[in-house]
């Protein structure tokens, strides 16, 4: 009997260590943009589905897409267009969950006379070097604006210094930083609601990883979804959770910033006319983006919806 108990006790840690380890990498440094995943981890949603999730943030030298390619990360977040681009280039990615239904892209300028894309003709406009800007280049392409794109790595200092006429910004990130820097009287051209408004952030993994670990991946998606839902219900606590990660990652930020960001991110999750997210990638949106991206040469070939289908349907 005593032996049996001892056996059981020996089994217990074995049982715990039997949790599947998943390395998750969001596409950017720690911030509210990925709040749902931090919440799922902090609140034990991953653990409760038998997952031992590690969140590893990307670096300049090791962006999320590289990490998924070389297998150092199992699941990543990516923008839909980037993912399609990768797929068209031969990387087999599966969309597990579509968090953002809209593009948070904006063009912001201190020059109040800049009010439409047309006004950007021949202007010097900041763009992320890390490559979230393909979508942003579409109006330039369509309208043949001849914009001089200035890539930047860090944040809004280029904009503040006056080195550029306008900058691309995410409504949940750079736009908020510009506001925080005291530039609240600026001209904003949003992409939301325009023909360039496409689904953005989503959760991806490789086809092969997905095939091999389907059950765990589905569990991860379900727990992540729970994380997002919890975040929507508990904004303040969520922000505090996010701040734990930003501090850990030495990210210069603050509560107000992260709260603003979370609120915006949660808004972008909802389809037009709805107050609740579906976390689903809509086929028509996908097809629209596919044809636009193909036309602009952002993707080398048309990508079929079914190629990337997986996760939340």
């Amino acid at each position, binding site marked *: 009997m005593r032996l049996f108990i001892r056996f059981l006790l020996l089994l217990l840690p074995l049982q715990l260590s039997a949790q599947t380890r998943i390395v998750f990498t969001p596409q950017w440094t720690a911030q509210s943009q990925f709040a749902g995943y931090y919440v799922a981890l902090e609140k034990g949603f991953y653990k409760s589905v038998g997952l031992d999730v590690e969140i590893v943030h990307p670096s300049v030298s*090791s962006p999320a897409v590289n990490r998924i390619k070389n297998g150092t990360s199992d699941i990543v977040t990516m923008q839909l267009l980037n993912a399609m681009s990768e797929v068209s280039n031969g990387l087999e990615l599966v969309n597990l969950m579509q968090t953002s239904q809209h593009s948070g892209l904006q063009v912001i300028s201190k020059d109040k006379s800049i009010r439409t894309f047309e006004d950007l003709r021949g202007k010097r406009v900041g763009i992320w070097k890390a490559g979230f800007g393909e979508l942003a280049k579409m109006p330039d392409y369509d309208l043949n604006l001849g914009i001089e794109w200035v890539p930047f790595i860090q944040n809004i*200092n280029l904009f503040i*210094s006056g080195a*550029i006429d306008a900058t691309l910004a995410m409504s949940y990130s750079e736009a908020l930083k510009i506001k925080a820097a*005291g530039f609240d009287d600026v001209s904003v051209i949003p992409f939301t609601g325009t023909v360039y408004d496409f689904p953005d952030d989503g959760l991806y993994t490789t086809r092969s990883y997905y095939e091999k670990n389907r059950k765990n991946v589905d569990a991860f998606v379900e727990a992540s979804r729970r994380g997002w839902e919890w975040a929507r219900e508990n904004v303040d606590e969520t922000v505090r959770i996010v701040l734990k990660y930003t501090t850990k990652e030495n990210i210069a930020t603050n509560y*107000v910033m992260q709260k603003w960001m979370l609120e915006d991110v949660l808004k972008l999750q909802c389809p037009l006319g709805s107050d609740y997210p579906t976390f689903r990638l809509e086929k028509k949106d996908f097809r629209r983006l596919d044809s636009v991206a193909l036309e602009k040469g952002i993707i080398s070939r048309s990508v079929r919806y079914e190629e990337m289908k997986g996760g939340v349907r």
Partner: protein
Amino acid sequence: MNIRFGRYIHSFSTKLSFYILLVVALIFVAGFVWNYRSSRDFVSNEAVERVQASLDGAVMKIDNVLNSVETAVKNMSWVVADNIDDPESMYRLTRMMLVDNSFIIGSAVAFEPNYFEEKGHYFSPYSYRVGDSIYNKQLGREEYDYHYDDWYLIPKILGKPYWSEPYFDEGGADMMMTTYSFPLYDDEGKLFAIFTADVSLDWFADQVNCISPYENSYNIMISRGGTFIVHSDKSVVLNETFFISSSAIGDSRFKEVGHKMQAGERGVATFERDGQEFYFVYAPIKTTGWSVAVSCLYSEVFAGVDSMRNNMFWIAAFVLVIMAVLCYVTIFRLTAPLAQFAQSANDIAHGNFSARLPRVKSRNEMRMLRDSFDYMQRSLIKYTEELKTTVANNERIESELRIAREIQLGMIPKIFPPFPERKDIDLYAMLVPAKEVGGDLYDFFIEDEKLYFIIGDVSGKGVPASLVMAVTCRLFRTVASHVSDPAEIVASLNNALAESNESNMFCTFFLGILDLQSGKLLYCNAGHNAPLLVAPGGIVTPLDVKPNLPLGVIGGFPYVPQETMLEKGTLLFLYTDGVTEAENPAKELYSDARLKEVLAAANSDVRSLVNDVKSSVDTYAAGTEQSDDITILCLRCNAEEDCMCEVEKELHLVNELSEIAKLPLLVGELASEFNFSEEQVFNFNLVLEEAVTNVVMYAYPEGKSGSIDLVAKCDGKSVMFVVSDSGKPFDPTLVPDADVTLPAEERRVGGLGIFLIRQIMDSVEYRRNGGMNVLVMSKKI
């Protein structure tokens, strides 16, 4: 208690003290407010200047250091250009930067991609300080494309040197840094590298934190992007911006100031936060475009002023209290005598002229008041004494005048009918002086069956006139007893009066002598108004008179006598001008016409006629003071009237009640001759009994015997009883009638007798004649 309190509240000293204090307090408050405000303004300006001075000091230090870094980089840039052919020498140069400038903790020459073919895409020799050691390394690599870093990209695009936003260096120094980037261009003007110098911000933060004008003041430094470089809360440094700090979120003005700071402006703002006001003084660091601000609490800035204000308040309060006490006491002492004066005035008003006055030592208005009071008291006492004397004198004079009036009136006959025993003459007269004594006169007497009568009016009134009147009356009696010619009498009187008339007084005078048997009237007028004849039927005519001169005007004036016959039943009405010249309130005269009217309508009885005239005059005057003596004499001669044979019986009694038994004899004798009825006999007996009983009972002192004479006359038409006695004067007609309505036991003693007599007889007259009481009672039968 309430009354005392009210008096206290309304007292002079309380009110005056209150108003003085009110004014002083207002002045105090105004001065206080002005002083406090100006002090506050002064301190505020001084504080702001002081804060600005220390702020400017710190900013200048920081700017100096930043400038020295800029200069060092600029100077070294030439050396870099000179050694451009030797890429490896760059490490030496960057190292030199650190060696030469202690503020620089890192320096790099970051080249454009592939500037040196052999060095490839990334070449950025970098020296950095760790502790006291300086290390070298090459920054650029596949994973770190510095070409897109702010410090590289921004100056490259701007084409000018650039101070980076502060950042936290995780590389090795683990400190807050900023990087000065200086773009280097080749001879063709093409950018080939960015030369940088990293500067630790710790020293700057220390400089900013050194600004401490007040104990609880705190300082911030923000970058161009509003990021906190210095803040009392270390956790917000580099993490938060000015614009999302709790202050800015709560107050848009704070945000505006933030924009001004970003714009490189300097200034002062005031804010309120958590219920505390504070100054916010800011100044730019020109080199980097950052801004430093110092915030100081009002409570600290104005601590001195506020404590001074509090001290001043207490001093002012103290001074006011002292003033209140002083004011009250002083004014109370000054005005205290007023209340005593009020009491004294009351006492004086109640007749105590020697009421005690308050003592006033000081020589002020109060003393003047006291002196005036004192003078008033003495004057009052003196005046009262004089008044007493005057009043006594007046009383004496009045009393004398009263006596004079009595004497004067005693000189003229006043008993009417004057000749009750005579049927041939009816006469009634009246004299009403305007003052106590008057100058009018009348007189009459019968001698040798002739009636002598006069009326006169002495010029003027009062005592002088009355004296002349007295003389005239006396002279008339004296002269008339010897002379029977009216003109002669008048002339004698005139001469006598004119003889010693130094005061030029005169007397209008009318004298008539009526033969009672013939009705012939002799008369003489001396300036008097003509008497009126009133014939039966009411025809009034004036008696024909010659005016002549009044008595006493010219001695020896030849007065002319006149004569006329006085018809039977004709009234002769004599009067003085007091009648016709009586005035009503409108100063209109009574007039002859009005007199004639009254006479025409008057009763034929002389007494009634006179009274009618007098009451008419009185009615006309309606209360107007009588200005002249009023004298009326009216007579009627019945001379030719057929006289029935008259029977006269006499009875002499002594004053004993037993004598009453004799009375029926007297009545019986008359009754038998004139056939009195039984009732008449009874009544007449009763009348005589009562009259005689009165005399027996009261006329003589007890035990003294006296006589009572009775005369009974009857002419068939009327019966008259005359009861005379020589006892003490007693007028039974003055005894009031007994009140017969009262029960017998309550009636006054006496009076019943005279009441019965009056009830039975038509007239009852009493007069004192020659020491005799004469009671005349008559009745028509």
